[in-house]
Each structure stands twice: as structure tokens, then as C-alpha cells.
């Protein structure tokens, strides 16, 4: 018996979808790499209605608690490799198994964009990290580099100026982007050096990170740092949905009812082209997607 619904992802969109699906008494499965998605990484949240102030981990455990109130069939730590329509069914292949459902909701969110330079994979978690909030405190008194020039890079830099000895910001555009207030704080910090028009070409080191190679003004130079914080934005986690239509940014195109170009496959939250990426919007989209999937199934009978 195929499932009525498979939900891919358990961030705000996927968890809300699971709660709605449980209340509709659908026979469904949640497949996810982790619980909470990007919300789990968020610091302070002050714009989720009902909470004047809540941290990301707190909100996520509230979400999870709500979901677990229902008996939910879930596969955690599982990676979806492929989603495909096969006759009337939709087949979801993962690194461990194969599942079939009448409908699928893709709510797989976004993940950190990688630099794509030599040394990046080798030194991941060996001085190179995508989470300044998590790993920043390990670099107390050390020289570090933040790669990027937008708000997330500025945010990382501002966390690090209080911890590290020296913070380099390596930005590949002529000037920093992001909020004016943060930019001013960064530019007036005594231990920050901003390198604009600079492109990272390699990460170097022996066992752990020892430096970064930067190309600027037509020549390459090496900067000795022990920590590298990559903050160059996010990419939608939509690579496995090969037959689903996506826009130039890789976001899944959806209708106002969360339909994709393939009947029976719906999508919700940050992985889609929905305007604005917010926790509360993702949650709302997750509920909409289930209601659409539910309607779709009733119309198939």
C-alpha cells in the first residue's frame, strides 16, 4: 500500500505539514536529514507570533513536541536521492530505501553555499566552518577569515571580533553589502580588515587550516589564518528533484496552491520560489501544501 503522502524535510514547513497531515488522518511518512532545518541554527527569533522572544533551538523543540504528539512515521538521518512520478504513484528513493506515495511535499529547505575551491572539503570542520555561531568560540585569540560580504558574513564577523585576535573579511565585490548599521559596526572595529574585490582561490594547511589564498588586483596572496568562516549565502536543497521545474536559482516553482509542474508533487517553504523566506511563512506554506495534497487525493477517487 503506498502512502497517501511523503513529506521530505522537517523544518518549519515539513513539521507543520506533518501536524496538518496527522490531523487529516492521512497515512504518511516524513523523511528528513534533521529536525528543524535552518530554524535550528537561528539565534534570537522575535517575529514568530505568540513568542515575543524565542531562540531557534527552543522554537524547534516546541515544533517537534507538537509533531510528536501524533504518532508519526518518520525516517531521520535519511537522504533523498530521487523523486519521480511512475504511473499514478510517486517514487521516493533514499540512501537506505525506496518508498511510494500518492502525493509528495518537498520541504527540504536550503543549505549553505560552498566555495568550490581546493582545500574546502579537506578542511571542513578542521578550521573551516559554515556556522560561526557554533564554532566561533573555538577561535579565541586566533586570526580568522570570514568569506562573504552580505548580512550573514557581517553577522559572523561581528560575533568573531569579540573572540578572535584579527578578523579578515574577504569579499568578492567592490564593497560590502548588507545592513548599514552592521556595516558601520564592522568597519569601525579595530581588529577587522576588509579585503574587497578579493576572491578565495584555495584553502591551505597541513592537518588543520593554516591559511587562505586570495586573488586580488591581479595577483595571488596568502593570508595566515587558523579559522575560515564561509558565509556566502544559501542554496535550495532541490538537486534530487530532477524532474520538477525550478527557477534559475534552483528554487522549485510553485503555484499559489503549492503545486509543482508534476501533478501530485507539491513543495513548501524555503526550497520554493515563494517570495520571502521566513519561519512563519514556511510554516504557513507547509499547512497549505497538505491541504492541497489532501484535496488532490480526494479528486483522484
Amino acid at each position, binding site marked *: 500500500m503506498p502512502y497517501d503522502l511523503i513529506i521530505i524535510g522537517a523544518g518549519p514547513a515539513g513539521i507543520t505539514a506533518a501536524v496538518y497531515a496527522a490531523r487529516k488522518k492521512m497515512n504518511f511518512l516524513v523523511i528528513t536529514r534533521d529536525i528543524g532545518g535552518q530554524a535550528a*541554527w*537561528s539565534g534570537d527569533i522575535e517575529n514568530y507570533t505568540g513568542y515575543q522572544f524565542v531562540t531557534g*533551538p527552543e522554537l524547534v523543540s516546541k515544533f517537534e513536541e507538537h509533531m510528536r504528539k501524533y504518532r508519526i512515521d518518520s525516517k531521520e*538521518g535519511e537522504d533523498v536521492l530521487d523523486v519521480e512520478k511512475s504511473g499514478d504513484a510517486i517514487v521516493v528513493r533514499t540512501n537506505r530505501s525506496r518508498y511510494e506515495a500518492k502525493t509528495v511535499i518537498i520541504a527540504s529547505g536550503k543549505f549553505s553555499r560552498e566555495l568550490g575551491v581546493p582545500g574546502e572539503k579537506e578542511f571542513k*570542520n*578542521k578550521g573551516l566552518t559554515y556556522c560561526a555561531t557554533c564554532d566561533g*568560540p*573555538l577561535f579565541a585569540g586566533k586570526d580568522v577569515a570570514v568569506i562573504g560580504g552580505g548580512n550573514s558574513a557581517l553577522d559572523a564577523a561581528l560575533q568573531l571580533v569579540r573572540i578572535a585576535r584579527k578578523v579578515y573579511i574577504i569579499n568578492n565585490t567592490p564593497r560590502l553589502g548588507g545592513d548599514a548599521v552592521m556595516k558601520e559596526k564592522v568597519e569601525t572595529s579595530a581588529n577587522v580588515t576588509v579585503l574587497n574585490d578579493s576572491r578565495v582561490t584555495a584553502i591551505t594547511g597541513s592537518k588543520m587550516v593554516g591559511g587562505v589564498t586570495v586573488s586580488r588586483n591581479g595577483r595571488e596572496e596568502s593570508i595566515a589564518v587558523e579559522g575560515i568562516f564561509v558565509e556566502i549565502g544559501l542554496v535550495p536543497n532541490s538537486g534530487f528533484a530532477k524532474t520538477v521545474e525550478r527557477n534559475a536559482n534552483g528554487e522549485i516553482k510553485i503555484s499559489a496552491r503549492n503545486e509543482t509542474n508534476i501533478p501530485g508533487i507539491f513543495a513548501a517553504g524555503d526550497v520554493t520560489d515563494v517570495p520571502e523566506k521566513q519561519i512563519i511563512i514556511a510554516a504557513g506554506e507547509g499547512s497549505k501544501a497538505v491541504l492541497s495534497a489532501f484535496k488532490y487525493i480526494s479528486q483522484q477517487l
Partner: protein
Amino acid sequence: MAKAVTVYSTPTCPFCIRAKQYLKENNIQFTDHNVGADEAKAQEMIKKSDQMGVPVIDIDGIIVVGFDKEKIKEALGL
């Protein structure tokens, strides 16, 4: 016999918070080291796990990097 569980974490890391919450929910006693403040423990963590990401959880010598629920469960025999 209860297993010896040591957590290496930073106070700001969301997955450290979730990992510790998970251990508490399962009534697992553990020692927590803030590697942002304790340089010696930071070195110990790097030596044990051969990397610098947090959290690192040492369960009777089995080293789990990150909040990997399945691995933690297995190591604890839950």
C-alpha cells in the same frame, strides 16, 4: 553500568543545545565542557575527534561528531 558520557560544546551552538537536551530527555548523565572557554578541553576535543566542529560527544570512547541521533542511540545502546 552507566556509560561515561562527555560533551564538548559551545554555549551558542544550537546543535550542542539540542544534543544535551536529547541526553537529558533520555536520563543520561554527562559532563559538559565549554570548549570556547577551556583551551585545554578544546585541544582534548580536537585530539579525540581529529576536527574542530562542535558538538563532540564521547560515549565510553566512541566519538560522535555533531548531533547524530542514530549514532548516539547506538553508542548508548538505547
